[in-house]
């Protein structure tokens, strides 16, 4: 019984934390966007603003809620959000939610697949490197990986397009699918290859290197000696003992990395003109489309906060040693080692 209430308490605490974080996020973003110098009225009605009469202008301002003091605008906006109404997109002139909702899926596909591929490959590469510590293979991978990580994502993308789709003509250079083939899985996969390659190349080593160092620390523990005297093979030791021990680290890093991967996804989307919320947010920043940008920032923020909370909960389940204090000191260590 007591245990049940404790679990409920924990969940409530998590939910409260989430709500507080989201409210803070929305306030910050909202205040920022309304302080902008670009005139939203101008971007909504275009050049028609100049030919409007004063009364028409006032009516238009009323409709957009631009005349109220800023805190009332925020209150209006927050009450609207609970009804799923995030305001009009100032550029597309339809509700912001309608602009965003068909694109979220595309971004989740690209982001999700690259997230999984990056982490699977990172763990695999880390094991390979850690097994051959300081060998030629390890050193070459280290150098190449670091170089790939520091090449700007967008330039890597442009170069890949130049080589593979323009000169070799193997792969399509932009979009998520050819016109009229939105249901064709093979066609979609073809379009995913290049963005995915860019994402993996530019993020892989950052994580592989962290895991490699973590594994190397693990190899110096005493229990490895015991396992060896027991007669376990190297591979067995790694999979049965080492990976298990660093699993909390991996999951915590995966949680923090969401921001990083999302940033990369957005750049990749913009480079490849992939119809997702990343390319859209770049567009909306260009056209001062605040409502849209605000919604996108909120969605992204919520995504990141939720995923980090999930990771924390998983960590608590698989590793009871993990207390908050440990989490804090751990975070510091990974940051310095990055």
């Amino acid at each position, binding site marked *: 019984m007591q245990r049940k209430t404790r679990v409920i308490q924990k969940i409530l605490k998590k939910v409260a934390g989430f709500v507080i*974080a989201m409210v*803070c*996020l929305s306030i*910050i*973003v909202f205040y*920022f*966007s309304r302080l*902008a*110098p*670009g005139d939203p009225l101008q971007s909504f009605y275009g050049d028609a603003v100049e030919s409007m009469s004063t009364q028409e202008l006032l009516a238009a301002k009323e409709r957009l809620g631009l005349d109220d003091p800023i805190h009332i605008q925020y209150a209006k906006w927050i009450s609207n959000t609970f009804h799923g109404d995030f305001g009009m997109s100032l550029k597309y002139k339809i509700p912001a939610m309608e602009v965003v909702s068909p694109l979220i899926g595309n971004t989740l596909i690209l982001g999700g697949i690259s997230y999984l591929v990056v982490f699977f490959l990172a763990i695999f590469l880390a094991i390979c490197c850690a097994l051959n510590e300081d060998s030629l293979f390890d050193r070459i991978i280290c150098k190449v990986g*670091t*170089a790939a990580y*520091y*090449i*700007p*994502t*967008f*330039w890597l993308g*442009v*170069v890949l*397009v*130049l080589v593979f789709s*323009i000169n070799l003509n193997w792969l399509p*250079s932009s979009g998520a699918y050819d016109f009229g083939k939105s249901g064709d899985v093979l066609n979609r996969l073809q379009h995913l290859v290049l963005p995915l390659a860019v994402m993996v190349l530019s993020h892989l080593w950052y994580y592989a290197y962290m895991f490699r160092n973590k594994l*190397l620390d693990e*190899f*110096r*523990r005493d229990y*490895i*000696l015991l396992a*060896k005297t027991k007669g376990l093979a*190297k591979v067995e*030791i790694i999979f049965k003992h080492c990976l298990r021990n660093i699993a909390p680290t991996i999951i915590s890093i995966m949680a923090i990395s969401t*921001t990083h991967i*999302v*940033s990369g996804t*957005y*750049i990749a989307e*913009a*480079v490849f003109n992939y119809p997702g919320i990343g390319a859209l*947010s*770049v567009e*909306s*920043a*260009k056209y*001062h489309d*605040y409502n849209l*940008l605000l919604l*996108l*920032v909120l969605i*992204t*923020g919520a995504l*990141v*906060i939720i995923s*980090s909370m999930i990771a924390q909960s998983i960590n608590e389940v698989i590793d009871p040693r993990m207390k908050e204090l440990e989490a804090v*000191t751990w*975070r*510091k260590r990974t*940051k*310095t080692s990055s």
Partner: protein
Amino acid sequence: MAEKNEDQFLMVHANYKLHIPKQNQPSMWKRLKGKPILSMIVLVIILLCCLFAGHLANHTPSSFYLKNLNEPPNSEFFFGTDSLGRDIYSMIWYGGRASITIGILGMVISTVIGVTYGCISGTANGKVDAVMMRAVEIVSSIPSLLLILLFVSLMGKQDIFKISLVIGVTGWFALARIVRSEVKQIRNSEYVVAARCMGAKFPHLMVKHLIPNFVSAILFIVISSISTSMTMESTLSFLGLGLPVDVISWGSMLSLANRALLSNTWWVIIIPGLILVITLLVITDIGNYFRKETNRKASNL
């Protein structure tokens, strides 16, 4: 000259340096070993080239040679011309000035904010500290790119100072966290307490006692934030949100890359990008040198 006598104290006169036994000076090679010499040399070359851009350039970087649009590299235009007919060779050296300035300015701004914020948060009492760290956590849950987009959409036309301000203002979160945890460790040391007892104010404490103690811990991050700022600038310019095309930087040169893809002019994309990447790698390599190497035990596996 006094005679050399091992058993007694020496009486030394004005030329006392003569009596100091000659120490074993490590050879030049030994001293340079393990240091990023190659990177230093490349960086210095790039910096000098940018500094003396006026002497190196054989064309005016901002003028349009409309007869020579999209010309491949040849003897007149060493690196070719772009779709506006500008000479890429001359632009690279002039553009480097802007890019490196943005890198350094961004680094300075983010370091100043991050170090100050971290020091305040580390020395403040528990509640203030918790609120300050929570705030950082919430803001850094927005991807930095999106945060920068927000700032950029607030601003009108970009210039070098504005863009480094945006990059600096959004790039200090990780640094502040590390500084805070370092400060937490040393805030209760005797010398800090002593300084406080003697009435030292916070700025004095920060500059004289705190910063010298954690400077080695943050050096790597500070140096690599130069390359982060430069990457950010070029990314933003490429996306059309950074410097306009007429302000020459490596990023704004790459903002023509999309157009170059259509006409398949590889030199517009590869050459400025390669220079940018080389600079980034070189800076990172130097930064890596400052990262403390942990002593490793032998592997048990």
